[in-house]
């Protein structure tokens, strides 16, 4: 048994490619649980970061620095009365959040956290991702319609028009990145998510910097379109609270409402993962070809441990700075334990990094590699997550006609132009 598990850790391909259904299922479960936890953490982080942008403190009461707030929120939402308006279309109202959630989570089956750290390496990976994430709008549309109320209906109409419009620019930006994958010896590109990252590795450059500024413009287009796709500020017209109270989920409450939130955050992470995969080199650490001496390898593999050590340090500072009133005793202990936990994780990661570097133990080496891949991937994704919060704190909301104008008259021509120029440059370079 142990042998089986350890041997799997050393597998160089994804469970999907290996045809191993059991491992695929385990991966799916890990990803589902992991994404749910990350969404909860994101919830806390967003509230905290937004609060600090806005000179507030954010959640402070539940647990030290509000660390347990997401759990309290989740509990509250689960225990809340689940209200279905009497005039609503009961079945569609019931099923709408599930559609959104399913679409958001299905995308994760093809996201490559590493060359073998994915459920499956689909041949049409990026196409599948775009297709499935476009299904998410069905959840919003049906939710808005089923509520049988004006504000949700307008919200649903807005969001469907918005998503359909921005998908076009988004798709064209993606195609220009896919074109770049074909600039190799055989002349054939790939739609596979893992293949795209490997193409960047072979060409020795992130597609962000390829044919500068072409890749960069395509990336910017995608970065804007993905905010619109996930209905986040400044494109959050579907749930514009100052105009449509809460848009498409005005009539939703409790668990069903939280499913919408879960889907929204999961979709945010998913589209960020697409951007990272296509333009930021996916799981690759910085300069994998340039700084490829073993010593650099070792230094970069220390980063996960250092990150956790830094987080532990922050938690420690927080523990020390906690007011010395007896009221804060439990909080102080809690934060201290949390700091110790982070420090312990850092220690384990450090150990893995050192053992994996020095020994010939292939399992340790592969574990270290896997941790590196996932770490760099998540780090890049988290930059986008931070940007999402930053946008929300900074910008006002677009109006619907302006949104459409930007989508069709600015983003679409630019992405088309970039696509054409990329194709021409690609042919010339060849």
């Amino acid at each position, binding site marked *: 048994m142990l042998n089986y598990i350890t041997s799997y850790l050393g597998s160089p391909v994804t469970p999907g490619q290996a045809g191993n259904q059991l491992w695929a299922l385990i991966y799916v479960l890990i990803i589902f649980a992991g994404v749910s936890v990350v969404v909860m953490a994101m919830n806390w982080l967003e509230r905290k970061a937004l609060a600090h942008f806005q000179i507030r403190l954010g959640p402070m009461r539940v647990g030290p620095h509000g660390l347990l707030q997401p759990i309290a929120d989740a509990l509250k939402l689960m225990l809340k009365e689940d209200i279905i308006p009497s005039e609503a279309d009961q079945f569609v109202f019931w099923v709408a959040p599930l559609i959104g959630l399913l679409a958001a989570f299905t995308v994760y089956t093809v996201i490559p956290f590493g060359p073998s750290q994915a459920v499956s390496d689909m041949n049409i990976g990026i196409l*599948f991702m775009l297709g499935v994430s*476009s299904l998410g709008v*069905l959840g919003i549309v*049906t939710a808005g319609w*089923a509520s049988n109320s004006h504000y949700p209906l307008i919200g649903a109409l807005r969001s*469907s028009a918005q998503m359909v419009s921005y998908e076009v620019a988004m798709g064209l930006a993606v195609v220009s990145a896919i074109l770049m994958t074909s600039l190799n010896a055989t002349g054939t590109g790939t739609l596979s998510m893992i293949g795209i990252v490997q193409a960047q590795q072979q060409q020795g450059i992130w597609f962000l910097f390829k044919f500068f500024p072409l890749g960069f413009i395509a990336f910017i287009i995608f970065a804007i379109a993905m905010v619109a796709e996930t209905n986040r500020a400044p494109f959050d017209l579907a749930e514009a609270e100052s105009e449509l109270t809460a848009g498409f989920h005005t009539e939703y409450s409790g668990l069903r409402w939280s499913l919408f939130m879960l889907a929204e955050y999961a979709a945010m992470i998913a589209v960020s993962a697409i951007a990272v995969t296509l333009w930021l080199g996916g799981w690759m650490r910085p300069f994998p070809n340039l700084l490829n001496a073993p010593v650099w390898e070792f230094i970069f593999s220390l980063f996960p441990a250092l990150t956790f050590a830094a987080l532990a340090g922050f938690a420690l500072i927080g523990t020390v700075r906690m007011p010395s009133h007896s009221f804060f005793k439990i909080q102080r202990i809690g934060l201290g334990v949390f700091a110790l936990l982070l420090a312990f994780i850092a220690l384990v990661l450090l150990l893995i990094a050192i053992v994996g570097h020095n020994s010939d133990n292939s399992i340790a080496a592969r574990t270290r590699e896997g941790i590196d891949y996932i770490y760099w991937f998540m780090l890049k994704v988290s930059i986008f997550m931070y940007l999402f919060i930053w946008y929300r704190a900074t910008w006002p909301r677009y109006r619907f006609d302006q949104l459409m104008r930007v989508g069709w008259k600015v983003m679409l021509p630019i992405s088309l132009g970039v696509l054409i120029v990329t194709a021409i440059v690609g042919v010339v370079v060849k």
Partner: protein
Amino acid sequence: MNPAMNVGAAPVATPWFFYGLAAAAVISGLLVITRRNAVHSALALIITLLSVAGLYLMLYAPFVAGVQIIVYAGGIMVLFLFVIMLVSIERASKERQFNRIWPVGLVASCALLALFLSAFAKGKALLPDRMMQLPESTNTQQIAAMLYGDAGKMGQYTFTFEIASLLLLVAILGAVIMTKKKI
């Protein structure tokens, strides 16, 4: 050989998947035509389309499956719903659904049934004697080769494909002009 790796063993596409997907497609297809509420029909149609996409995947045609999802389920059905939502559901649900053209429908379904029966009677003679082992990884490239040709040569369907895209472009322009009084 790594014991965890059993490449080339039983593919994911087992008969059970086929039966499940086929049943989903048929049942939701029936729902499409029996539901009085147009939105319910549309949702059932989405399930049908997704099941068919799953069947394409089983046929080692992932590109077609992806296009099926992205174009039909993600694009066209959203527009369908968009339109249906603006129509008065209360009135539409009271209207008779089986109207005067039912003889035409009957003839069409009879013809289709005859086709199915003949295929069933001829049996295996029509089908390849074993499952085609198309490599999944090259399916998309084969489509590309058909459309654009291998390494510089003109593909088999390049002209047709370009004509079709031109036709679509004209249709788009026509739609824009028809809906918009001044541009």
